[in-house]
């Protein structure tokens, strides 16, 4: 028994535990998210939503999962089989891997990479392949159009996503997400003295230093995760179901899981970059005496922020109608890209001026 406990203490052992925990909690969160999506949609439309399976209908997703498992797994004869089978896997893995770098409590992350956010962007870029391959391998017009739309859209908005996030790293001076979080928990330097009360710590969050950057990042994140108003790749009124039209059973469920896991990952990244990650104006150290409780408390703070963001994303989806494709490209290339470059230059100048002032 002691040997096992000691093994958990080693870097490899703790990593295995964290992988198991994150790898299981995220799908659970996704199942909760699907329920939340349907309930919020219903509430906004003055309906009730799924409320029969389990308390408040919370187990609805598990019933749906069971249905997916027992459905016939159709493999159409006209598809490119290797690519067709590869696409659903590619849809799930990148967002789950991207979650590995995001710190969900103090020193609690699966991989503490120096490149941090670059790894997240790299992995989320791989996600494009799932959509493009799925659409192409299906050998169906709707799926193909969906796949083409998805690849064009994701490549366009990835630029804005990266440029918007750069401002944060100019302020922080590090790409490590742990540093980004701790940098937001210091409090503000006013008149040469560090104020670390409740309000200074609140306004130390990057969302107050980078309001426009945060807004751009959030909009680009919506486009990256194919959420309304940017859900053109699967625009159901035009393209049947877009790139996953030809998928059924668990393969469809994997696309579904991947999409929602990507939402969780991007919300986690937004929380880390702009909303202070696992910190809460000093309250994150409430249980400093007991490390286990402290970690749980910080995970709860982080999860709370993520769930709030996820709710906002759902809320936007059921409020805003879909963009037209030319509007999408116009917004991405002609509006958001110049604005984000301008904001980046402004941030650079402001950071430089602040450094001069402090010195």
């Amino acid at each position, binding site marked *: 028994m002691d040997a096992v406990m000691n093994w958990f203490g080693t870097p490899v052992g703790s990593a295995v535990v964290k992988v198991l925990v994150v790898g299981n909690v995220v799908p659970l969160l996704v199942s909760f998210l699907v329920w939340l999506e349907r309930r*919020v949609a*219903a*509430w*906004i*439309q*003055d*309906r*009730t939503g799924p409320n029969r399976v389990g308390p408040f209908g919370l187990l609805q997703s598990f019933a749906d999962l069971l249905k997916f498992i027992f459905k016939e797994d159709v493999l159409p004869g006209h598809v490119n089989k290797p690519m067709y089978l590869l696409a659903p896997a590619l849809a799930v893995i990148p967002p789950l891997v991207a979650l590995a770098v995001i710190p969900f409590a103090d020193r609690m992350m699966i991989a503490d990479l120096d490149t941090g956010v670059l790894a997240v962007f790299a992995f989320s870029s791989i996600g494009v392949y799932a959509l493009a391959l799925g659409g192409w391998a299906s050998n169906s017009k709707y799926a193909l159009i969906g796949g083409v739309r998805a690849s064009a859209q994701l490549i366009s908005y990835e630029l804005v996503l990266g440029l918007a996030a750069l401002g944060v790293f100019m302020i922080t001076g590090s790409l490590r997400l742990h540093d980004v979080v701790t940098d937001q928990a210091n409090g503000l330097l006013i008149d040469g003295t560090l104020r670390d009360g409740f309000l200074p710590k609140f306004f130390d969050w990057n969302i107050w230093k980078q309001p426009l950057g945060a*807004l751009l990042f959030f909009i680009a994140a919506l486009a990256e995760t194919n959420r309304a108003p940017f859900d053109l790749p699967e625009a159901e009124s035009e393209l049947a179901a877009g790139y996953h039209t030809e998928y059924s059973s668990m393969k469809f469920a994997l696309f579904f899981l991947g999409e929602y896991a990507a939402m969780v990952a991007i919300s986690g990244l937004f929380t880390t970059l702009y909303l202070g990650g696992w910190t809460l104006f000093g309250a994150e150290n409430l249980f400093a005496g007991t490390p286990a409780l402290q970690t749980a408390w910080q995970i709860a703070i982080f999860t709370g922020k993520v769930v709030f963001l996820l709710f906002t994303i759902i*809320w*936007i989806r*059921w*409020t*805003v109608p879909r963009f037209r494709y030319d509007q999408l490209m116009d*917004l991405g290339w002609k509006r958001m890209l110049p604005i984000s470059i301008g904001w980046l230059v402004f941030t650079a100048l402001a950071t430089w001026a602040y450094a001069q002032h402090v010195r």
Partner: protein
Amino acid sequence: MAYVKVKRRKLTFAERTYVAPIAKGMVTTLKHMLQLGGTERVTMEYPEQKWKLPDRYRGAPVLVKDAAGREKCVSCSMCEYVCPPRAISIIPGEIDGPVEKAPKVFDIDMLRCIFCGYCEEVCPEEAIFMSEEYELCGQTRAEMVFPKDKLYAMGEKFGRDGRTKDPVKKYDRLVSEAAAQGLDLTK
């Protein structure tokens, strides 16, 4: 003037950024979500809550008895003839008493019934009524052919008060008519 050119209001800068109008829309949806500002849920929790049916709602046809618990139906077969989909089948039978006939078998095939209400309209004895029962389901076709007992039971359960519980009458009427001719049918 073949066409009218509609003057569009010039959008303000805030409106052209998308952000402000979207925020406005989100306030509206939030109001609906939290049921503020006069919005309310329109969904009904069906098995627990049910609609108040309109007075003339035509549910499943049922048979009723009179106030004394006697069968009103005299198996005249009018409903059987008038029934457009031929859902009703009656085998008449003799009974003792002042009235000669009552149905031996009275089946309504609920899979055939189109709930038109002709049977109710045509019945001279006010013995068959359209009830408020609309939850008709079964596992087999045979199960959906409702026999006489079941139709009477449904008449008890789903019949509308004041209409099906009429203290009529045909017995009393027959008796009084016979008495006018010097006959006593009550024996």
